[in-house]
């Protein structure tokens, strides 16, 4: 058992948990404000593609990362307008965003790079393998602080739990929700950018491979709280690290390790391991009294 917990496993756990954590913290802002964000997968893809394409053209990963943040916030803006302004079903809108960003990067990479969904290779000196990890780790206490110790955090939680009361107290429900959803897009996009210009050195078709949904699972498993969510991401990252390590060696098929995050989420959601309670107004559009 001891050799499993080698340094390489620890490092690989951290690397694999980072994109999950960034996206999950993004989801946390949106969902604590009452807007379901199952679009995390699509937002990550938007970030991953934008980061790789812009880094390729400008040869600066920083410009690439910034562009990814802008792209993520913009796409999240579409989700926000649909859900907040036009009161679209939040799950349906999120599903649309996910399908959209299965298509858009492939369509654009075909036009820009005449490829079937991939960007060209980015040289090693233009990659940022560490910064996103630092951002992710720093964001955990920061998110905790913002949520629990700032007026913005108080309003955000109020809007997610009881928008009527928040509105009556003079909080602009729509404004806070817009801010939260845009923020979630930006963070998920950094998570995506880490995949394309941090871990790998290009964007490939559907390179998130469900990580947006695992991030969502981690968010629920972590009961919509920053520290617990980080622990959940580390657990899921560890499971993935193990499955890579054991490929071809161990007796346990990788598929059984792959399903761990999903099964755990189902179990937690059913209340078998301590109830996981969603923000009260999650998924409900808010209509201001006229």
């Amino acid at each position, binding site marked *: 058992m001891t050799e499993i917990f080698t340094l390489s496993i620890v490092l690989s756990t951290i690397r694999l948990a980072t994109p999950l954590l960034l996206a999950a913290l993004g989801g946390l802002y949106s969902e604590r404000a009452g807007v*379901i964000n*199952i679009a995390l997968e699509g937002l990550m893809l938007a970030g991953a593609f934008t980061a790789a394409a812009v880094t390729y053209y400008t040869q600066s990963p920083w410009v690439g990362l910034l562009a990814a943040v802008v792209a993520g916030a913009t796409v999240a803006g*579409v989700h926000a*307008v*649909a859900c907040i*302004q*036009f*009161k*679209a*079903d939040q*799950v*349906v*809108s999120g*599903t*649309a*965003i*996910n*399908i*959209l960003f*299965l*298509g*858009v990067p*492939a*369509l*654009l990479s*075909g*036009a*820009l790079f*005449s490829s*079937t*969904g991939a960007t060209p290779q980015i040289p090693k000196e233009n990659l940022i393998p560490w910064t996103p990890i630092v951002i992710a780790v720093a964001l955990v206490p920061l998110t905790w602080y913002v949520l629990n110790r700032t007026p913005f955090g108080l309003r955000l939680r109020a809007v997610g739990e009881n928008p009527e009361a928040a509105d009556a107290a003079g909080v602009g429900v729509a404004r806070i929700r817009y801010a939260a959803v845009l923020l979630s897009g930006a963070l998920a996009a950094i998570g995506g950018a880490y995949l394309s210009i941090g871990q790998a050195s290009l964007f490939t078709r559907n390179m998130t491979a*469900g990580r947006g*949904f695992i991030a*969502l*699972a981690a968010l*629920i498993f972590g009961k919509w709280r920053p520290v617990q969510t980080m622990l959940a991401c580390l657990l899921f990252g560890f499971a993935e690290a193990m499955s890579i390590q054991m490929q071809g060696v161990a007796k346990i*098929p990788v*598929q*059984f390790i*792959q*399903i761990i995050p*999903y*099964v755990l*989420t*189902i179990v937690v*959601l*059913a*209340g078998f391991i301590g109830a996981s309670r*969603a923000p009260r107004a999650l998924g409900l559009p808010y*209509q201001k009294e006229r």
Partner: protein
Amino acid sequence: MKHLRELLFPLIAVSAAFLVGGVIVLLIGDDPIETYRLLIGSALSWPDGIGYTLFYATPLIFTGLAVTVAFRCGLLNIGAEGQLYVAAFATAWVGITFAQLPAWVLIPLACLTAVMSGAAWGALPGVLKARFGSHEVINTIMLNFVAVALASYFTQYHYKNEGDAIMQTKMIGLIDTAQGLRGENAHVPRIGQLVGWFPERIPLNISFFLALLACALVYVFLWRTKWGYEIRATGANLTAAEYGGISTRKQIVLAMSVSGALAGMVAINEVLGYRYRYYDGFSVGYGFTGIAVALLGRNHPVGVLLAALLFGALIRGGLFVDIFTDRVSKDLVLVLQAVVILFVAAEALFRDSLGRFGLLKRSKV
């Protein structure tokens, strides 16, 4: 008049999506008119265009109906994808394991397996919701991944041909005969095998007619039976249904089971009618497109049929656009699909602007 208005918003949404798609095609430097001409022309050519359009529409009818039944109960089934994967593997398993059975036993048995296994996988999130109150959206998403992983495990470790590099099971219905290995035993006949004037190379098969039948049956089920009434009552107002003496928990499980069963029927088209085996990753998002189909079809079997035909045509046409345009790939279809969903979901956008121009009486929100 009522029917015309039902058609109005879906038509606006589709037109708007095509407009957005056209702008995107322009932006990436191709001719939108030419692209759409190719897309539609190739989807409607005879016999290949029509044949493939109907073939691609078949699974979408099933998944569109699946989403519809759940939706009428107030549930969003994002798990049709997982349900159809489980059903496809189970169906292939029956086709492989009971290959010795005569066709008239094996084919109905395999079809029944498709329906029942889909229903079981669909019932799971239904039970979890009814028993523990956990949200079906999250559970169906999670179960999608579990379904794909399980099917992939059994394929890789137990039902693959030795040394096969592709993740697929053995052929179904293979038996040793005096003439060597034969496999037609478990095949649902293709249209081309039944009538002489339709080419056999087109995989359109009996499942298409099964899908039409399913549309009719779902209509009868939802609007002409007690179960359907109770499901719709639960979906319309859970609390009121509860007070009216309806066991809403039972309805949730029932709706999810029927939904899963419908999604499972995709396996009949794919496994028994087309590939004759389970093939890892065979679904090009049929389950998710089913959400678009149901929404665009206003969660009504007739609407679902029309929307499935449209999306089937888009899938077929997309393949042509991929080959015959310089810069546009088949991914344009995904974009069109997504934009349709967004526009249908954010219907208030059109309602408000139409109302502003006095074209439509403003609805009270």
